[in-house]
């Protein structure tokens, strides 16, 4: 179920507490999230350093999003 995996990844990327719980027990945390055995097994093999870097990167990019409406401010009085 890719939708379930995407939902769980979104939680891991956004929630430091969820990442800590997952790091302590990847199989248990993934299973409790309702993922099927294939996805649980995939998450057991996850690159934890990459996961943390991804979470930090997403946070930084959210904060750096471009402003809305700047073209109107530039070209329209």
């Amino acid at each position: 179920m890719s939708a379930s995996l995407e939902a769980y990844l979104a939680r891991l990327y956004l929630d430091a507490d969820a990442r800590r719980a997952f790091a302590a027990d990847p199989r248990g945390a993934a299973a409790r999230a309702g993922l099927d055995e294939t996805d649980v097994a995939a998450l057991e093999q996850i690159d934890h350093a990459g996961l943390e870097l991804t979470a930090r990167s997403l946070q930084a990019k959210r904060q750096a999003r471009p402003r809305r409406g700047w073209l109107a401010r530039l070209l329209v009085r």
Partner: protein
Amino acid sequence: MRGYDRVGLGWRPELAAGILANLDRVDLVEVIADDYVGAGRGALRALQTLAIQVPLVLHGISLGLASAAPVDRRRLDALARVVGAVEPQGWSEHLAFVRGGGLELGHLAAPPRRDATLGGLAANVARARAIVGSAPALENVATLIDPPGSDRDEPAWLADAVAATGGELLLDLHNLHANAVNFGFDAHAALARLPLARVRFVHVAGGAWIGNDGGRRRVLDDHRHDVPAPVFELLADLAARTPNPLTVIVERDGDYPPIEHLLAELDRARSALAGGRARVAA
């Protein structure tokens, strides 16, 4: 370089004045479509005015097409309004998911590279085509983590994505470079495996090294640094491998240098294209 290759810049507020003062050196601009989703008539008129002055393409960042979840109809309706008002020369989106389980990531995440995602992607692109009136070119994304749940490598995923949607690939060469560095594959070999006949649009950008304490370093695609030499080498390689006219956008999203510096990067991209084309002619 073939006369029909074009090189332009991502349109950003910090660069607007410099671009408008140098339209003889900027072949086109790429505008973030999301900035105009839900915008008023004044903002859309301003965008229409810009499109009269310089060829324009739109680039989306928040549809989340590469997902098992269906793309929101309201988002597509809003995008269709922008596309209809501006009539861009094309539009694009990312091969990424941006939300899941009711949570908004606020940016792009590489999806599991597997059939279930492909099925969702194909359905989402078909929906986008039906509502917007045309299909987006689909852009490969950079990632700092090998997407969990994947059963194929990136070149195979990109080829499958293009085949499943019948669309085009917007090939971001810095994303390809970053992933090659981060996951230890050869970017040029990967390039050779891509469906290059379906590539007309290209992104180039820069990034930075990052790393965890004690962990191996990785390349972050931050768009805040100059385009590195390996990316220009990939551009030359691409130009040698496809006869398609290529439209290249230099992306910059922070730490903006003087416009002359960016215009020099556009010239360097033109040189790389010319070098690749010359290899074919030789």
